[in-house]
């Protein structure tokens, strides 16, 4: 059994919580006591149906306002796969939550109400999935029951989305007409839409190929922690612990340590008390080397003929997540792989209009939830790839040292 992480986003009314409630219920991830609590609440509110959205409305503030305000994680499993859902709200001010939820996703699920068609929010979500290079996207056209399961309505939305998405970078797209409330095409194929010949949503989630999305070519091993037991049994043991960010690393491989540029050979790769034949993403292992080279946290192992950039100038697309706007000249911290460095904002090149995709140049600042292209200069070099090439070595967060908050997410261009 493997693991698929997917991100959903949708407006308050397009039935996202109902859809997730149904996926959880139909895969038996909901227990009787949870179901009873939700049924009671539904009755108390005077509904004549069980409000499935109540399963996922977590915090009291949300229940009071009747909206979802943050990223929530849900879990369910079928005999084929375990699923982690990053469930994010769709309203305008929460772009940052969509970015957060999408950052780890293998698949993005965009939900639209068939009566309204594509909205600003569904476009924004598709754009964010594309910017964060989520490899698989599903557009679920919901509430088909309310448009008499009309193929024309579905086709119109499908055409709209396809023409919009050609401006984006979406490697794999599946469009599915569903009714979350009635269950059409959620787990089983709907008899109400014989004109639709594709898979049900659940079938697609269970079968979409994700293994090929990983980079097994370019070896990137950011050193996270140096293990030196200094015990009698392991007197000379010195291991470099970390999570493989790219490529396949094997004992006997010649590797280069950056930023020093020294070359050495992999002696062994440990996973607890056993040695492994190969380490690949996202394994957490400990690498032992044949030579005693000086390597510490923040350094990176790679191949001699395949190296990341070593640079103090970072050109990136960022999503600004703080109330205080971003302005040139401001100083922050950047955390990139296992390295945290000080940085100064050199230039805001443009701000991206998430609806028209227009690049607004000559903006003096980036505000909360805005996306733009920014140049940073760092005090020490970072070991980077473009985000397009590697989602781990191509991503970073910006931290405001004054209050410790995470103020931006960046993808390197």
């Amino acid at each position, binding site marked *: 059994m493997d693991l698929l992480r997917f991100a959903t986003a949708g407006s308050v009314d397009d039935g996202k919580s109902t859809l997730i409630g149904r996926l959880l219920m139909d895969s038996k991830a909901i227990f009787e006591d949870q179901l009873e609590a939700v049924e009671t609440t539904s009755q108390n509110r005077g509904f004549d149906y069980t409000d499935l959205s109540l399963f996922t409305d977590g915090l009291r503030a949300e229940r009071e306002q009747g909206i979802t305000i943050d990223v929530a994680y849900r879990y369910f499993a079928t005999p084929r*796969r*375990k699923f982690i859902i990053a469930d994010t709200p769709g309203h305008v001010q929460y772009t940052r939550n969509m970015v957060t939820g999408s950052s780890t996703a293998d698949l993005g699920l965009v939900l639209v109400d068939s009566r309204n068609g594509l909205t600003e929010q569904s476009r924004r979500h598709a754009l964010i999935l594309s910017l964060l290079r989520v490899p698989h996207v599903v557009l679920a056209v919901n509430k088909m029951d309310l448009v008499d399961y009309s193929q024309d309505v579905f086709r119109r939305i499908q055409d709209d989305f396809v023409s919009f998405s050609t401006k984006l970078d979406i490697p794999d797209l599946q469009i599915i007409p569903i009714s979350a409330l009635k269950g059409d095409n959620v787990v089983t194929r709907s008899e109400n839409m014989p004109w639709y010949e594709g898979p049900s949503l659940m079938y697609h989630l269970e079968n979409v190929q994700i293994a090929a999305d990983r980079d097994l070519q370019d070896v990137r091993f950011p050193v996270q922690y140096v293990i030196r037991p200094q015990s009698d049994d392991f007197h000379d043991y010195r291991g470099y612990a970390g999570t493989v960010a790219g490529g396949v690393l094997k004992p006997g491989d010649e590797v280069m340590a950056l930023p020093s540029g020294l070359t050495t050979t992999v002696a062994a790769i440990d996973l607890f008390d056993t040695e492994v034949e190969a380490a690949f993403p996202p394994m957490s292992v400990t690498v032992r080397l044949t030579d005693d080279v000086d390597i510490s946290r923040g350094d990176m192992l790679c191949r001699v003929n395949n190296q990341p950039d070593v640079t103090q100038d970072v050109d990136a697309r960022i999503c600004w997540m703080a109330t205080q706007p971003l302005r040139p000249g401001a100083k922050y911290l950047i955390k990139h792989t296992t390295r945290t460095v000080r940085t100064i904002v050199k230039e805001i090149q443009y701000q991206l209009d998430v609806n028209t995709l227009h690049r607004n140049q000559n903006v003096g600042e980036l505000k909360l939830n805005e996306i733009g292209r920014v140049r940073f200069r760092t005090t020490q070099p970072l070991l980077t790839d473009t985000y397009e090439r590697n989602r781990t070595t191509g991503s970073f967060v910006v931290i405001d040292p004054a209050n410790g908050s995470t103020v931006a997410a960046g993808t390197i261009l």
Partner: protein
Amino acid sequence: MKAHRDYRLTQLDELEAESIHIFREVAAEFEKPVIMFSGGKDSIVMLRLAQKAFYPARVPFPVLQVDTGYDFPEVLATRDGWVERLGARLIVASVEQAIADGVVIDDGKTSRNRLQIGTLLHAIEEHGFTAAFGGGRRDEEKARAKERVYSHRDEFGQWDPKNQRPELWSLYNGQLHEGEHMRIFPLSNWTELDIWHYLRQEQIEIPSIYFSHRRRVFERDGMLLTESDYNPLRAGEEASERQVRFRTVGDLTLTGCVESDADTFDAIIDEISVARLTERGATRGDDRFSEAAMEDRKKMGYF
């Protein structure tokens, strides 16, 4: 030498790798971390993962347990076994002692579970811990579903759910100011079934009360509670011996058991796969008081 077919990991391998990454990240970035140990299966899985993360070196943090005075003896025995195996330092923060010192107030109505909060926060402050690992899982409860892996606590030890730091990729932000600390949840993405599958895969020692055994129990508020001096029978209650096991372990005056014949990991996994009640809803008196019970306790600084 171990090999993986087609360079693929199972979901348990992937969860393990993610948790190990979190342990190492905390070890590298925080001055004074501690593992909060409840004695339950989740905190035992944490110890196992910590052991794997730093092997062959020792786990570089102490283990902190809040002793309610009402702990199951089987749990304390397992704890001692693990502490010895890891060679870790054990710190016990006693609720009894906290009551005696006036750190928390026992008004006779507040459960030991609630008194743990004050005791825990006091211990964290007293020892100056900057990061405290907890075994919380997001699948346990709705409020937990929104909690970060690195969950920031202010100088009063409180959680502010509306002001959480966004958490992207596997880039955890460990910035702290004086007096603040971070709760770390390395098992965030594990479900109850994942925990059991992992315990089986690794053949990990857990308290014997998780497995089916004979025990004298009585019914209270729809739960089966263990007969004990700490938990005198009330009028109309009657104890009898039954074949039971515990799905969670906590304060023995509040933790219910279920009738079960499951005496192996396999049997427990079969039982849970068809269970229709959440582990907390079924057997934890402390979570049943209100729909927002967990959210309230978390804001105050609960695990």
